[in-house]
C-alpha cells in the first residue's frame, strides 16, 4: 500500500468512515503490509486515548456475548458511541474460524453508533488476537468513546486482556469447580468486576459465597473498595442494571483517583516492550534465516548427534557473531 493510500485511510478513519475503519483493521490483521500498518498506527496515535476500554472475559459458554448485548442497551441509552471487538479462536488445524459472537448482538447491526467487528485469534495466545490492540487504536481515533473487547472463551492462563482494558469484567457460572479453582493463579487475578451469570442455575448461591470468600482474601481493589461481585441472568435481564452501574462507578473512581492514568502508563510499558521484543525477534529471525536452518538442527538432535541446549546455544552464538561481522 502506498503512502498516499495509507494517508487516505487515516483521514477516512478520523472522519469515522465505516469502510475505512473496517479496511484498516484488516490491514492490521493481515500483516502483509507491515510498513503501511506502522505508518497507519503512528498517524493515528496522537488521536488516541479518549476511549474507555472494557474487557469481557471468562470461560466459553458463560454468556459473555449475551451479557455484552444487554450492556449495549444501557450504553446506547446513555448515548455512547460503542465499538465492539469480539474474538473467537482460529482452528490450529485448518486455520479457519467460525466467528459467531456477533449473532447475539445483531439487533445493533443497523445502529449507526455501534460498530461490531469479529476477529479470529490466528494463533495468538492470551485470549485476544494479535491485532486487537491495533483495532482498539483505530476505533479510538475514529471517535468511539467506549470500546468493548470480548475475549475468546478462556481457560486459566489467557489473561492478556489486562494489557488492553481499563476495566475487566470476569464472567463465571455455577458448576465450574470449587473454591480451590478460584484460588489458583491466572484467570481469577484479572477481574475488576466479578459476575456470576446464569444465576438462576443450581449452585449459584454456593458459588457466590465461595467467590466472596476468595475475594475477601484478595483484599481491596485498585480503587480501595471491595471487589464488586454481581449476580446476573442475562437472558432475562436480571442484574444488568447493577452490573452497568458498578462498572461505571469503578471507572469513575479509577479516573478521579488518578489510578486510571497510572494503569494506562503501565499498559504502554507492556506495549512498548512487546513491540521492541517483536522487532528484535524479527531481526534475528531474518538474519539467521532460522527457518532454513532449523530442520538441520532438529535432525542432529533427533539422531542424538547433539543435545538440544548445547547445540542451540552454540548455533545461536555463531549466528550472533555472524551478524556482528556484517
Amino acid at each position, binding site marked *: 500500500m502506498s503512502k498516499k493510500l495509507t494517508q487516505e485511510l487515516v483521514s477516512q478513519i478520523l472522519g469515522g468512515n*465505516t*469502510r475505512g475503519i*473496517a*479496511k484498516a*483493521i*484488516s490491514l492490521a*490483521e*493481515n*500483516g*502483509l503490509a507491515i510498513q503501511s500498518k506502522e505508518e497507519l498506527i503512528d498517524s493515528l496515535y496522537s488521536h488516541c486515548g479518549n476511549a474507555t476500554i472494557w474487557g469481557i472475559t471468562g470461560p466459553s459458554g458463560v454468556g459473555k456475548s449475551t451479557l455484552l448485548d444487554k450492556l449495549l442497551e444501557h450504553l446506547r441509552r446513555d448515548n455512547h458511541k460503542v465499538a465492539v471487538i469480539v474474538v473467537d479462536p*482460529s*482452528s490450529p488445524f*485448518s*486455520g*479457519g*474460524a*467460525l*466467528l*459467531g459472537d*456477533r*449473532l447475539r448482538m*445483531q439487533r445493533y*447491526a*443497523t445502529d449507526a453508533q455501534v*460498530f*461490531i*467487528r*469479529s476477529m*479470529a485469534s*490466528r494463533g495468538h495466545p492470551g485470549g485476544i488476537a494479535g491485532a486487537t490492540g491495533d483495532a482498539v487504536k483505530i476505533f479510538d481515533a475514529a471517535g468511539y468513546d467506549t470500546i468493548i473487547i470480548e475475549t475468546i472463551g478462556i481457560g486459566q492462563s489467557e489473561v492478556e486482556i489486562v494489557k488492553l482494558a481499563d476495566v475487566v469484567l470476569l464472567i463465571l457460572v455455577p458448576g465450574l469447580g470449587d473454591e480451590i479453582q478460584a484460588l489458583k493463579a491466572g484467570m481469577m487475578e484479572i477481574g475488576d468486576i466479578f459476575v456470576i451469570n446464569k444465576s438462576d442455575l443450581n449452585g449459584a448461591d454456593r458459588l457466590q459465597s465461595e467467590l466472596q470468600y476468595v475475594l475477601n482474601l484478595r483484599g481491596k481493589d485498585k480503587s480501595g473498595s471491595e471487589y464488586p461481585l454481581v449476580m446476573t441472568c442475562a437472558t432475562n435481564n436480571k442484574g444488568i442494571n447493577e452490573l452497568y452501574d458498578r462498572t461505571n462507578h469503578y471507572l469513575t473512581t479509577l479516573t478521579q483517583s488518578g489510578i486510571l492514568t497510572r494503569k494506562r502508563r503501565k499498559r504502554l510499558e507492556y506495549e512498548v516492550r512487546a513491540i521492541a521484543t517483536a522487532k528484535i525477534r524479527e531481526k534475528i529471525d531474518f538474519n539467521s534465516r532460522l527457518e532454513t536452518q532449523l530442520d538441520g538442527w532438529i535432525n542432529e538432535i533427533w539422531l542424538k548427534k547433539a543435545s538440544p541446549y548445547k547445540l542451540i546455544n552454540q548455533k545461536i552464538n555463531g549466528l550472533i557473531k555472524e551478524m556482528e561481522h556484517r
Partner: protein
Amino acid sequence: MIKKIRILIAKPGLDGHDRGAKYVARALKDAGYEVIYTGIRQTPEAIVRTAIQEDVDFIGLSLLSGAHNELFPKVVKLLKDQEADDVVIFGGGIIPESDIPFLKANGIRAIFTSGTPIKDIINFIQSCK
C-alpha cells in the same frame, strides 16, 4: 503471512431453517476460511452493514422461504449503494432452477441448491480469488 479470506454467511428473510447455513459455515471454517455467522432473520440492511464492518470478501445468502427473488437482489443493490460491490455474493437454499438465471442477472454470482457437494462451493471461492 497470507491474506485470510473472510466470508459472511447470512440468512435473510423469515424462515427459521438454519441447518444448511450452519453446515456451510462449519465446512468453510474447516476449509480454512474465517466465517462470520449472524443467525436467522436478518434484514438486507443488517447483512450489508455487517459485511462492511467485517470487511468480508464474500457473502453467502441462505434462504428457504421463497423470497429469494426479492431479498437477494436487495442485498446486491444496498452493497452497490455503499460502494462495496467488490464483495462477491453467492446464494443457496430452496431455489427453483427457473429462478437462477434471474438471480445471476441481478448480481448473484453463483447459486448452490440443496445436495451441492461442499467442494463445489470451495472451488467457486477459490476461482474468485
